[in-house]
């Protein structure tokens, strides 16, 4: 539907299409003409509308929209000629200028949102290294990325996702590095999304993965621009969603979560130690409760004699079976964990006291649970948080292992591990094996695996990503 030459008719049409009361229609007259600016109150910078749009129009007194466009000194100014286009742009937050007697209008960008400042993200703090983090504005986020990649083949493609939310989603990649079929697949998957709204990037993440019911995450995520850029430089494709501080990267591999940005800023010996600790911690977190229960119930021989005597003394008089006791303690831990996240901060202290003293100490003294069980549960709980990205999947696995170990013992743990290994080995996302660079084994990629080599030795990008440009370091011998 084309715009009419009558200003009143156009205004009425827009009012009919958008009956919302926060749409402002400001009609003003110059000596020669009648103009109307239309904008959404909550997302427009009104001072800028007055200073950069209305005041110059008053001063220059243009007879029509074409003259107004040439006389205004505003960047990113566009002409609209249809009602649908006008409404679409208006809802995105643009300001529209209409003129009586003209069948077109102008669109200017005076968008203004309330947003957080760029700050260090709480989920990935570092001792050494950049402290900037993404926020909820896609423009700010892109500016943080642009500051770090200054090449002409850094591509950003915008998409509008969500039937009602019309959320802006940006796909970022470096054209000379990223593999074309991965970029194409991501674009296709995003185009296929048909959903009411996208409140957070995790929605995008869940919609684009191949295995939608998988226990393991299949999309990388970060809140830090330095990590994001590093992943783009390896040949991955990034997805930035408006309204979310968490950006996504694909393809994702399991080892990524054991790597932190700080590993590359510190000595590689220290980094190796930290990565190994993370891996061991995850193993302890998942296997320790189940193994302890299996050992108590079925395989007492596995426990050294002195430790066995300690356990025997501490479980004397405990009314619950070892598996139920561990399950009960795990349940309490998960409840405390959930409550501490949801509870207002000013009652946090009370929660700690109740958790540590009442539930922990008193339960042991009352003979409901044993000390080794509390210790093992606490250790497992702490270990899990060494890799925060894996908490979701690993806490469920811990529970499953506990149930299997309590039912059929150590061989159950072995079989479940076999199943998991087959499952993880079979998992591919965006054509990249989930357990690479270990299964399949890729020697050059292992340089940045659980054990990392010094940075100058990582000459090639991850081979598993099959990037266009394979080499990332060219060392010139300096004499």
């Amino acid at each position, binding site marked *: 539907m084309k715009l009419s030459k009558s200003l009143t008719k156009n205004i009425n049409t827009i009012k009919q299409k958008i009956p919302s009361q926060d749409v402002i229609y400001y009609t003003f007259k110059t000596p020669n003409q009648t103009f109307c600016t239309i904008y959404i109150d909550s997302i427009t910078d009104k001072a800028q509308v007055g200073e950069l749009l209305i005041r110059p129009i008053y001063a220059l007194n243009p007879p029509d929209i074409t003259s107004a466009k040439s006389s205004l000194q505003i960047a990113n100014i566009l002409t609209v000629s249809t009602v649908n286009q006008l409404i679409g742009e208006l809802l995105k937050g643009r300001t529209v200028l209409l003129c009586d007697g003209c069948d077109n209008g102008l669109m200017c960008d005076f968008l203004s949102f309330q947003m957080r400042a760029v700050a260090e993200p709480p989920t990935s703090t570092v001792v050494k290294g950049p402290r900037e983090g993404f926020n909820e504005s896609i423009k700010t986020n892109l500016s943080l990325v642009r500051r770090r990649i200054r090449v002409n083949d850094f591509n950003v493609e915008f998409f509008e996702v969500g039937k009602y939310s019309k959320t802006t989603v940006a796909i970022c990649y470096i054209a000379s590095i990223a593999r074309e079929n991965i970029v194409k697949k991501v674009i296709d998957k995003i185009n296929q999304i048909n959903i009411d709204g996208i409140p957070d990037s995790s929605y995008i993440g869940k919609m684009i993965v191949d295995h939608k019911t998988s226990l393991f995450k299949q999309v990388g995520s970060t809140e830090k621009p330095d990590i994001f850029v590093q992943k783009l430089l390896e040949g991955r494709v990034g997805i930035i969603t408006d309204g979310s501080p968490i950006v996504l990267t694909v393809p994702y591999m399991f080892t990524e979560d054991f790597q932190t940005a700080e590993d590359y800023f510190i000595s590689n010996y220290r980094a190796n130690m930290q990565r190994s600790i993370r891996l061991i911690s995850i193993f302890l977190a998942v296997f320790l409760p189940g193994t302890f229960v299996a050992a108590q119930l*079925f*395989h007492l*021989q*596995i*426990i*050294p*004699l002195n*430790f*066995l005597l300690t356990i025997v003394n501490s479980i004397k008089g405990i009314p619950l079976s070892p598996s139920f006791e561990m399950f009960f303690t795990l349940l309490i831990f998960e409840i405390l964990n959930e409550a501490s996240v949801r509870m207002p901060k000013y009652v946090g202290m009370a929660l700690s006291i109740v958790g540590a003293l009442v539930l922990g100490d008193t339960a042991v003294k009352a003979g409901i649970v044993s000390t080794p069980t509390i210790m093992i549960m606490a250790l497992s709980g702490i270990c899990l948080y060494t890799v925060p990205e894996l908490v979701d999947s690993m806490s469920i696995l811990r529970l499953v292992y506990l149930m299997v170990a309590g*039912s*059929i*013992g*150590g*061989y*159950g743990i*072995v*079989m479940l*591990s*076999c*199943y998991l*290994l*087959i*499952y993880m*080995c*079979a998992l591919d996302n965006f054509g990249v*094996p989930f*357990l690479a660079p*270990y*299964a*399949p*084994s890729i020697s050059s990629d292992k340089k940045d695996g659980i054990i990392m080599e010094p940075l100058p030795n990582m000459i090639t990008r991850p081979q598993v990503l099959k990037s266009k440009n394979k080499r990332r370091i060219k060392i010139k011998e300096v004499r």
Partner: protein
Amino acid sequence: MQKNDIKIKQVCALFIAFLPLTKIITAPSVFALNCGEKLWQPLIILLSLDLILLLFLIYVCKKNGNKSFFNVLNEASPTLAKGVFFIYSIFFLLKAFIPIIEHKQLIEYSFYETLPLAPVFYPCFAIIFYLCIKGFKVLGRVSEFAVVFTLIGLGLIFFLSVFSTDFSALLPLIAGSNKSGPITALNALWWFNDAIYLLFFLGRFDLQKKSGLKIFASYLLPFCAVILFYCIFYGIFTYVSPAQNVALSEISIFSVSLVNVGRFDYVATFILCFSGVFSIAIPVVCSVKCLTASLGLNRSKIPAIIICLLLLLLTILFSAKYTAVLAFYTKYLTPLFLICGYIMPLLYLLGGKKDVQKV
């Protein structure tokens, strides 16, 4: 058949990770019973046979441009291909059965004394079925992980047992040869003959420089570890070796260090059980693949269900009668294992020309 879904590294890892595990549970006591202190002699015979087969397969693979066995037979005669693959399906089914019973015995004997074993062991078939559906590609990837567990497990077992061994209990290599060695070797084919797996991997990996050498070394080294295991086993238990039915559980119990650190060998056995599940699954996967090919199916789900259910049924019926099963194998199945394992691979020579696409 899919090309390049398994890598040469994975073939090597597969031999290293899984070759020793089916041979170190009950076979050592059977060897000790038949050959006594000369139990290494049949091992040398079996090693020689396997290495000849392996070298033959590497040679014809290079000569024929790494065509798959099925393609070679199919080019000669589609009916022949289907028939041969059906026979191999039965062959692998029978080859899988003994290790499965052994694995069950290992679990029963080592870990569970009070619990009824059925709910503990039988879920293992679900894992095998899952692996059968996923196929060789996943098996290859799994082997890259499992090789670490096998090396750790075997390393621990050797470390805990080698100091209690009296190697003088074994005879010198040359002395005391008689017929018991070859006869024992002939009656133990179902535990060995793992080189045959390579026949079914042909055409699935890219031949590279020194691939043959790598495969040869990765077969020879774990086999040497098996020979060492048998020697240690006999060196520890000497004339009472035949009475130690589950060698893997028994071999390290005399270690002094266990007094201080608890049954550490138990952990090693658990670790080896982890790799063991995959090692008993390999012949089942091969059986499923052969049945799928012989029936001309695209997906292996139905053959996997058939084979796994059949094995489950056989295990439920006969696992308690292990000695009788062994006697049956010895009496009736030796020719089948000899023909399928060492003679039928010669059919690969039918494919005389190199794969044109490959060239």
